[in-house]
């Protein structure tokens, strides 16, 4: 295997950067071949390129049945009658289950237990599961669904999120008191969380009108963000196998095994230990797999029939079968002095949560706390609302509330620049946060956050050749819209725009965020092998590679094996919030350090190491190092092979890792250090716009991102590319179009995701200012570029057209000049 081309090398932190030195001792570990900082191949790579990697939809078991789901055709209706008998009479059908067949808790939910396993009296979104069948063939199952009779009494749908939030006469999606909302979230009517923030004079009784008078310039804007779909290519799927002990083994593509287990078991009426969940191959996640989809259904059917049951959603069903990114309605007002310094901001953020809560409360918390973005604003009033409607449920998607806010505040920064006739980068520089800045929640930024440097670097990146000079200019392929766009070069205008995104990394607001790792070191076939076992979900981000790298670095071994992720080890938390490198990485590191300390002690006990020295975990163990499968004593003594140190011994340690505690937000003032860590990405987009046709071609989408420390530079660049690509999609094409509660475009013909032709070359510059709070100084990297790419692209289109462009995704009719 020859090493691949290095991506743009991470830039070394400039010597003057404050806090750029790594935490003491953190770099003492050897960057062994394939260790931390290297870019070894993915351990699952060979299986993936040969098609032999087993995704959840590839699973098969002897005697297996196929499960399928009957879904509501109405967004809001009362169920009058369900008759399953005609379906049960069909040969090959083994079970037809409704809510009456759920033996335990009738509802589940990540944050609020409000989602029925199968709808009972009411359906609250089009596509809500009403019944499930198990049959010997998918076709039999499909025909069985057609035979289930359900009579509905159609109710008025609640489709308008602003009405749901503010109209006291709006019908309620959930009867009062029927769902366990938390009082500190200020629930009221259809609002399941309202998070206010008040700072400065706006916390001291002054009004926005007072501040407006003190500002030299005021910009206001109403913005909308459409519903984005994660559109994982691998559909929701899994296989449930009934076990002899009355429990069930579930193999499923998920982001969080223990959260699945915690939600499934009560619904089945089983203790958690009888619901064993193992990760199957995950074909992308991006938030869509944080909630349950088919998990409980497959387990119910397996337990009922006594046979393995597999469920695989098709593409259309997938659009109904998972949560989406919250559509957002934003009303932002910013006031500034004539020199560009921001004085105040007043924000209203309404997020459409759809029929069930999913992670809406947490999304509201993120949108509120980061609503001002990376800008110092002394006086602020933020009101963020998450509401119930009868639209498809919304929850986690890469960026999680911060994406929507970012489109709003970055659009406002561009408006402000225009109002002041100032360069958009300059306005951002004047107000940029950095270490020591205070967020509107009162949280002080205590890690390096070199925003000004990032903006300067982004501005200094080389520009693509101007349209006139670009080769093949007359070639229609070089025009927006490509060969089918029918454009002519004369109507093409170039635009450049910037976007900056600030994202919380790891779970926030007091959540007990932790991960667990078990590491075992033993001699197998004469060589030391480390076995790493966690419940962390590999979803494509490359966490399996990082786990191996950390074990190699910390234990000095060449061979590392990974145990399949399952619930037989403690929780790793979710593969979301850009948190796994930090959290599971931290857990693997801690477990390895504990193993290393025991190996050193073992060497002493066996007389292979002289002296009593240190042995401090995390340091150099009294000068002892583990490297190249050997224990290297201090002072130049000869290395001792680990195989000799270990002999027959098996050294195993399990460790939990936690980031520093965070605080909830005060329900009235919004104060609280709610975030563990922050990440930032700056994007510069260059676009060509056909101003007659309203078509956009993204010419360049270049990024500068602060990552703390690059553990795997090549995978890291892939994360930044992937995040930017999804941000580009939100800017230009991706929207689940919902009309009267019905998804109008549940296919890849009508829901467009960027193809290889839509995505330009993307230059990436990576800054490494270590975060002293995090293992190796790292910061998660997957989400920040998803924030910044969208406003950068839109700003570039605005620069080309002069049109206001207040809604994403942009539509040709918004762009084309009248």
């Amino acid at each position, binding site marked *: 295997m020859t090493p691949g081309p290095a991506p743009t090398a991470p830039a070394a932190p400039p010597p003057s950067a404050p806090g750029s030195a790594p935490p003491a001792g953190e770099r003492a570990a050897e960057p062994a071949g394939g260790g931390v900082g290297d870019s070894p191949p993915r351990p699952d790579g060979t299986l993936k390129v*040969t*098609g032999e990697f087993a995704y959840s939809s590839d699973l098969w078991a002897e005697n297996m049945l196929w499960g399928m789901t009957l879904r509501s055709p109405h967004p809001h209706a009362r169920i009058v009658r369900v008759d399953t008998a005609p379906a049960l009479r069909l040969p090959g059908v083994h079970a037809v289950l409704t809510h009456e067949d759920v033996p335990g808790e009738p509802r589940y939910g990540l944050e609020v237990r409000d989602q029925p396993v199968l709808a009972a009296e009411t359906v609250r979104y089009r596509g809500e599961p009403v019944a499930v069948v198990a049959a010997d063939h998918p076709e039999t199952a499909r025909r069985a669904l057609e035979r289930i009779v359900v009579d509905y009494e159609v109710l008025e749908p609640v489709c308008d999120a602003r009405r749901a939030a503010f109209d006291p006469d709006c019908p309620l999606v959930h009867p009062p008191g029927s769902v366990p909302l938390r009082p500190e979230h200020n629930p009221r009517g259809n609002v399941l969380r309202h998070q206010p923030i008040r700072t400065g004079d706006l916390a001291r009784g002054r009004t926005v009108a007072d501040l407006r008078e003190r500002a030299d310039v005021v910009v206001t804007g109403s913005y909308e963000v459409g519903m984005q779909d994660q559109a994982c290519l691998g559909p929701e799927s899994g296989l449930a196998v009934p076990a002899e002990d009355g429990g069930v083994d579930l193999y499923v593509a998920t982001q969080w095994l223990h959260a699945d287990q915690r939600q499934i078991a009560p619904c089945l009426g089983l203790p958690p230990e009888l619901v064993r969940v193992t990760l199957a191959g995950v074909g992308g996640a991006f938030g869509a797999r944080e909630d349950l989809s088919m998990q409980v259904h497959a387990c119910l059917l397996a337990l009922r029939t006594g046979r393995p049951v597999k469920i695989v959603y098709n593409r259309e069903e997938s659009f109904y079968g998972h949560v989406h990114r919250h559509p957002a309605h934003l009303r932002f007002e910013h006031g500034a002095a004539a020199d560009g310094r921001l004085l105040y901001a007043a924000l209203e953020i309404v997020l459409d949560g759809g029929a069930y809560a999913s992670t809406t409360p947490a999304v509201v918390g993120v949108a509120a706390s980061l609503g001002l973005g990376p800008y110092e604003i002394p006086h602020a009033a933020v009101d963020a609302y998450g509401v119930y409607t009868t639209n498809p449920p919304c929850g986690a998607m890469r960026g999680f509330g911060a994406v929507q806010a970012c489109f709003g505040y970055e659009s406002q920064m561009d408006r402000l620049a225009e109002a002041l006739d100032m360069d958009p980068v300059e306005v951002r520089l004047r107000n940029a946060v950095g270490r020591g800045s205070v967020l509107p929640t009162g949280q002080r930024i205590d890690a390096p956050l070199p925003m000004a440097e990032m903006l300067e670097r982004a501005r200094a990146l080389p520009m693509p050749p101007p349209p006139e000079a670009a080769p093949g200019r007359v070639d229609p392929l070089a025009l927006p819209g490509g060969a089918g766009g029918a454009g002519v070069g004369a109507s093409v205008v170039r635009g450049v725009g910037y976007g900056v995104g600030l994202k919380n990394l790891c779970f926030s607001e007091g959540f007990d965020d932790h991960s667990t790792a078990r590491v075992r070191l033993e001699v197998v076939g004469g060589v030391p092998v480390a076995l790493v076992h966690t419940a962390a979900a590999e979803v494509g981000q490359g966490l399996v590679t990082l786990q191996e790298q950390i074990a190699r670095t910390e234990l000095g071994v060449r061979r590392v094996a990974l145990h399949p992720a399952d619930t037989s080890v403690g929780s790793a938390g979710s593969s979301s919030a850009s948190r796994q490198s930090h959290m599971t990485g931290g857990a693997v590191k801690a477990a390895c350090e504990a193993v290393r300390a025991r190996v050193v002690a073992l060497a002493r006990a066996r007389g292979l190491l002289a002296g009593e020295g240190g042995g401090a975990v995390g340091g150099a163990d009294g000068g002892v190092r583990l490297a190249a499968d050997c224990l290297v004593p201090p002072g130049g003594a000869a290395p001792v092979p680990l195989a000799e140190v270990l002999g027959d011994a098996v050294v195993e340690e399990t460790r939990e890792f936690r980031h520093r505690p965070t605080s909830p937000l005060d329900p009235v003032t919004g104060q609280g250090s709610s975030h563990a860590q922050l990440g930032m990405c700056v994007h510069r987009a260059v676009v060509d716009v056909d101003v007659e046709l309203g078509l956009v071609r993204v010419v360049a989408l270049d990024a500068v991102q602060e990552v703390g420390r690059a553990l795997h530079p090549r995978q890291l660049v892939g994360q930044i590319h992937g995040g930017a690509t999804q941000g580009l999609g939100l800017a230009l094409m991706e929207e689940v179009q919902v009309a009267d509660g019905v998804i109008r475009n549940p*296919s890849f013909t009508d829901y467009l995701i960027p193809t290889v032709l839509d*995505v330009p070359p993307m230059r990436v510059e990576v800054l490494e200012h270590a975060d002293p709070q995090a293992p190796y100084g790292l910061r998660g990297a997957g989400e920040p570029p998803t924030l910044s790419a969208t406003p950068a692209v839109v700003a570039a289109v605005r620069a080309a057209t002069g049109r206001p462009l207040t809604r994403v995704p942009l539509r040709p009719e918004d762009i084309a000049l009248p």
Partner: protein
Amino acid sequence: MHADITLTVDGRRHQLRVDTRTTLLDALREDLGVTAPKKGCDHGQCGSCTVLLNGRRVVTCLVLAVAGDGAEVVTAAGLAEGGDLHPMQEAFMDHDAFQCGYCTPGQICSAVGMLDEAAAGWPSAATPPRASAEGAVAELDDTEIRERMSGNLCRCGAYAGIVSAIGDAARRTHAAAASGIPRPAREGGRR
């Protein structure tokens, strides 16, 4: 209605009886247990199910199994001969041209088929008009690769790696076999 058909898949001959409405993708995945081609949409929109059918790349969700009677199917699994990865597979590894990997078997089959098409002089919409007329692909640069690979979606957004991997593989294949495949414009397709 059912029909008896013969399929040779990755060198193995299978005889099977299928419902005539069965797609080639379902016949491969469900009847034969060949799961290298993935189902991402079942409607010809994503390219995850791409295989080489008698040497040409096709999306198997749009082909009826009966239409493939007697055909030779090569999946991503079949490209790796005797345990050795195909140069395209090696290039995908080296360029980190995937994340979740779900689109990857389809991308790789598509890329292998695409290189053969280019070698045979098939023009694309990106081929300059003169070269098209002469039945020659001047150079398999990134623009050509992007145009020819635009039917394969990658939701993880690994396109940069995919384009550079294919350029690299084209060069490797060219060097190894001197098969007439045009050289990419830039070293390894890097930019």
